[in-house]
């Protein structure tokens, strides 16, 4: 009985503490915004709020320049105008803590005991990076919750819910589309075949293995959700919606605030006739690695998704600091199953921070 009580209180303490710290940060951010010159709130939050204001006035959220997200986000933030400016931030920190809960559930489903699962969750819940990002008003935690929800439903084999959440997450940001291949590979009928001899029959058998009930169900529900949302917002806001939400990101060549390895190359060739070909050449390593990672690791879906996101973010033509959260939310899922020693792990972490420091150093040094 006593152990049960300690177990329960232990489980809820970490989630409550995580929420309380984030709430305190939101309150502090409000204080800093009102009293100091350097604002705590991110400019993106003001973009969302302005777009939500346009919606409350019956106009398109794309009247706000640099609003490049789904109208769903602006609709969700309309209480910012009707209730309080803090609503959006509270929503984001709730999704943040929800992501932590989803991580805990996935870890339990993958066979970890409660104590270890909670400790691993603390990597997300007590991590200053997602705390800071959500309390500053970035919407990344909504997407983290959707992606983690999809993975949880896949682990628990609730395919329809997984498909709904997947369709929603692809609608909100394009990058989860890369998970389609590992999910398809995971859902197809696996037959123990001898694929050493590639013949037309085994190739057709391979294609045929994709045509099973589960995969078709997933594809139709996810596709249906995505198409329905796209059709609805296209009807409401027209071509501008398609362009700002999807096409802009596909052809984006942002040369400012960029962590991408291609940024200088794209800046120097921005107006030359080779820029299209260079863009394609930059896309190839990303595509090849995504295909290889899908095939090599599709049996462990969270690990495969983590690799996909890490590859996508690292080899993308545009990378801002928000992108790092996309694979950070999946890291706690795979850490218990890694065979890295603590020393190696810490060494890699230091290497990651050193890389960041070298990249940002020249920009932050005085004299620029």
């Amino acid at each position, binding site marked *: 009985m006593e152990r049960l009580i300690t177990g329960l209180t232990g489980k809820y303490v970490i989630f409550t503490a995580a929420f309380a710290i984030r709430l305190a940060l939101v309150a502090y951010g409000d204080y800093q915004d009102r009293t100091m010159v350097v604002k705590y709130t991110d400019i993106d939050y*003001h973009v969302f709020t*302005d777009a939500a204001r346009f919606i409350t006035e019956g106009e398109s959220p794309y009247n706000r*320049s*640099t609003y490049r997200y789904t109208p769903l986000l602006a609709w969700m933030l309309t209480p910012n105008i009707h209730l309080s400016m803090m609503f959006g931030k509270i929503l984001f920190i709730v999704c943040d803590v929800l992501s932590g809960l989803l991580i805990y559930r996935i870890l339990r489903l993958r066979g970890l005991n409660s104590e270890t699962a909670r400790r691993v969750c603390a990597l997300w819940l007590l991590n200053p990076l997602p705390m800071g990002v959500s309390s500053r008003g970035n919407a990344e935690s909504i997407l983290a919750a959707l992606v983690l929800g999809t993975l949880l439903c896949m682990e628990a084999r609730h395919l329809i819910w997984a498909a709904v959440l997947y369709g929603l997450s692809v609608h909100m940001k394009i990058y989860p589309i890369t998970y389609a291949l590992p999910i398809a590979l995971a859902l197809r009928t696996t037959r123990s075949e001898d694929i050493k001899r590639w013949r037309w029959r085994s190739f057709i058998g391979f294609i045929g293995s994709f045509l099973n009930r589960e995969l078709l169900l997933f594809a139709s529900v996810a596709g249906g959700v995505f198409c329905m949302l796209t059709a609805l917002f296209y009807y409401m806001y027209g071509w501008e919606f398609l362009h700002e939400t999807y096409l802009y990101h596909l052809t984006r060549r942002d*040369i*400012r605030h960029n962590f991408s*390895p*291609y940024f*200088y*190359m794209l*800046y*120097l*060739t*921005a*107006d*030359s006739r080779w820029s299209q070909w*260079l863009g394609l*050449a*930059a896309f*190839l*390593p990303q595509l*090849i*690695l995504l295909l*290889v*990672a899908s*095939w*090599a*690791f599709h*049996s*462990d879906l969270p690990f495969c998704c983590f*690799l996909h996101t890490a*590859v996508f973010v690292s*080899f993308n033509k545009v990378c801002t600091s928000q992108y790092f959260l996309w694979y950070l939310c999946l890291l706690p899922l795979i850490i218990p199953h890694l065979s890295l020693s603590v020393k190696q792990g810490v060494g890699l972490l230091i290497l990651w921070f050193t890389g960041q420091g070298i990249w940002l150093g020249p920009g932050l040094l*005085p004299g*620029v």
Partner: protein
Amino acid sequence: MYFVLFSVLACLSTCHCFTGNDENHCGLLKRLLESSRVSVEINKKGFHREAVTTVELSPDVLSGVRVLLVHRWPRGVYLDPYQLASLSVESDWQILLDSAIDLELPAHKTSGFVTYVYPTVDGPTPRLLKVTIPVHGRYHKPSYDGKTFTSVDIEAPELLLRTEKCTQLSIFEPHAVVDAPCTADNSSACSWVKLQHQQEQGAVGLQFPVGDGSLVTPVCGGTLLVTMISCVALSKYLWKHRLV
């Protein structure tokens, strides 16, 4: 008869008062034009700067005189309309932009623009005015002549003055008379007198870093080589350790 004389005298004196007052205000404006000074300085470093415009008006009674600062900005910088909107709520000036500003285009794809700043909209105009406007640098094309910085020149703004009570603006030669919006809501145009520049302050130069265009081949080659090698190495490693 005395009544007629009295009324004529009253009329004459009122007329004299009117023309005298008009002369007073126009004379005041003329004195302001002769002794006012406007200057601009740029603070902060990097791509996000502040333009501080200082206006010194000559020490006279300044009731009824309205000031307008017209900045002509070059294509290499931009102002963020949303930032300006939130700033003008907190400060006492209002700003009007002459065109929509794209916040993300590089410099060679845009053109310069004009802003009208109305300081101290409510209340009397003080002798010393300071208006701080945040200015942001645009990205420029890479340079091909080895220079690592490009220069953008910001000129001092034009100082425009007007008062309700002086309407004969043609007497202020050589200062030009221009039409400009009366207030920041651009509902009507008024005639303003433009201060002839004393030419004592030239343009302020801003330096923004640019890339080196002559390095395009090594940069492209190097970037693609590194990413291809990483891709091949990672693919081999992933394939070797694949889960069966």
